[in-house]
């Protein structure tokens, strides 16, 4: 049996990728299953999806803990989770990154055959949006020879075609082909020691009865009330607000409507954006009555 684990971010299509890979495996005569990790379904959050492929009927229904193949759809996930956890000896890794396999460091102890591809650029070129799942499938076919490329293309055309329209099927298959050609195959050897997660979790007898948990510091990290400031949610954004102070009439609507409390109302009632926490939703630009706020792509940069 082959077990595959996909690591992606909500919105990148990890589940569709797992389903399409299973679909392609069935087309080439295997039995297969695919399913997502059960958890929060928020955009941008780290998510997992799994697939199993076998020649006989698969009775295992659990999540994949010891994968033969790990697919990392976003390079920044390496800092957040341990994607190669449980990777079997001889297992393979496919990663969306601009680097070559030899330059990739997945942590000390990792020594695996690795395929890297700049799937984000390919997806933007082929699909005009950063949904990398089909490009990653092309890269998988290059690195891993169990499911042939022909079956994957067929599965993509069929699956995406029937769900998103014929043209979407063709474009996604094209993304897979481009990724197949662009994938660099090599070996990755990890050296970096990632800090072990040492999350402090107070148990019931550490908190006195009828007293709420006070803000305290553990392992250089604050816990307790008002401690989420340590989560820089500003990294999620793809567009950023541009504020023209001279146009602002101090109506406060943007300040009121910001879901993330990322707009700071200053003493003179003009606004300041806390881009560390702004998720770039664009509500402030939408509610502004005088067009003092405009959303611009992140690369162009907003102003604080």
């Amino acid at each position, binding site marked *: 049996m082959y077990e595959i684990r996909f690591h992606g971010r909500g919105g990148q299509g990890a589940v569709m990728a797992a389903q399409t890979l299973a679909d392609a495996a069935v087309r080439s005569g295997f039995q297969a299953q695919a399913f997502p990790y059960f958890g929060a379904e928020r955009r941008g959050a780290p998510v997992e999806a799994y697939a199993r492929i076998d020649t006989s009927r698969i009775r295992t229904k659990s999540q994949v803990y010891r994968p033969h193949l790990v697919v990392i759809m976003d390079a920044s996930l390496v800092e957040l989770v341990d994607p190669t956890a449980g990777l079997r000896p001889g297992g393979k890794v496919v990663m969306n990154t601009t680097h070559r396999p030899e330059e990739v460091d997945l942590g000390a102890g990792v020594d695996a055959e690795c395929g890297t591809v700049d799937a984000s650029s390919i997806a933007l070129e082929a699909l005009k949006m950063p949904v990398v799942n089909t490009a990653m499938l092309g890269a998988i076919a290059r690195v891993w020879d169990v499911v042939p490329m022909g079956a994957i293309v067929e599965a993509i055309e069929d699956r995406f075609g029937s769900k998103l329209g014929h043209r979407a099927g063709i474009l996604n298959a094209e993304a897979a082909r481009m990724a197949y050609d662009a994938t660099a195959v090599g070996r990755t050897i990890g050296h970096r020691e990632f800090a072990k997660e040492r999350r402090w979790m107070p148990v019931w007898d550490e908190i006195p009865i009828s007293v709420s948990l006070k803000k305290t510091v553990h392992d250089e990290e604050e816990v307790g009330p008002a401690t989420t400031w340590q989560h820089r949610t500003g990294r999620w954004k793809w567009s950023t607000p541009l504020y023209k102070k001279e146009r602002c009439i101090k109506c406060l609507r943007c300040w009121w409507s910001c879901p993330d*409390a990322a707009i700071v109302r200053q003493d003179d009632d003009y606004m300041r954006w806390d881009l560390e926490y702004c998720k770039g939703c*664009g509500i402030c630009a939408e509610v502004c009555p005088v067009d003092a706020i405009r959303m611009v792509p992140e690369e162009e940069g907003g102003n604080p």
Partner: protein
Amino acid sequence: MRSMKDVPREDILTHGHGACPGCGYAVTAKNIAKMLGPNTVVYVPASCLVVFGALYPYSAWKTPYLFTAFENTGAVTTGIKAALRRRHIDATVVGMAGDGGTFDIGLQALSGAAERNEDIIYVCLDNEAYMNTGIQRSSATPFGAWTTTTPAGLEVKGNRRFKKDIARIVADHDVPYVATLSVAHFTDFVRKVQKAKEMRGFRFLHCLTPCIPGWRIEPSKGVSINRLAVETGMWTLYEVENGVPRVTYKPKVMAPVTEYLKLQGRFKHMGEADVRTLQAWLCEKWRANYGEEAPSPPCVLPPKEEVLAHDGDTLYGI
């Protein structure tokens, strides 16, 4: 506090929480918390607010915060208030439940607390389905809406039942204050929260909170879409103070419901017959709420687009 200008600068629900970009739920909770001030105890049952607001041991709340099971909002807030009373602490107790935790699962505890006239504020943040667990239908889901448990099939397209009028059910418990809020109607919102804050006894605030992935809307519409909800009659702004109902904002003319529907992917599959059914229901609601007949506005269906994956795929976007 009479208008937005008087709302304090200090945030109680602080930044760094994990809500989706553009979350209407977070805007509403943030503003209510801000107005209630630091001398507050917050209780949240299972809902999005648990997942994004506080994941043990971190919390986005500056105030004491408690979370237990789904159905307990009425009961737990009662208990918190009793404990504070026993210890001679004068603090506001607020329970912020979602629509599932209010309309369906928490209804018995809500009814009990309302009937006993407990001195708490009950906030229902209504995003019209069980959004946190992946968009399942609740009894707050409007007619015709797509959810994963009311899919747009070949025969039946979307939810077949109309939204339950929970505010009226709570008002029938003879509680001191019941109000419906929309975060896009700023002054009305501030006035109602302030009124609830100053009163004693059971106060119920029912807020419409747009959900970006569940309603299939643009993140930037997370607040402004509420205006259309009120203009089309899908949401009515009123308050019931000591048994006296009063409409606090009435649109001049009724906007066709299609104006509201066409912005949302969850209504995309709706056919002409369903839209007409919904419009007729809205006209009846308009008459009941505003006390006047509304001529049915012409509903122009937007041109049909190709059916997209998320109309059927429960796991789209993961």
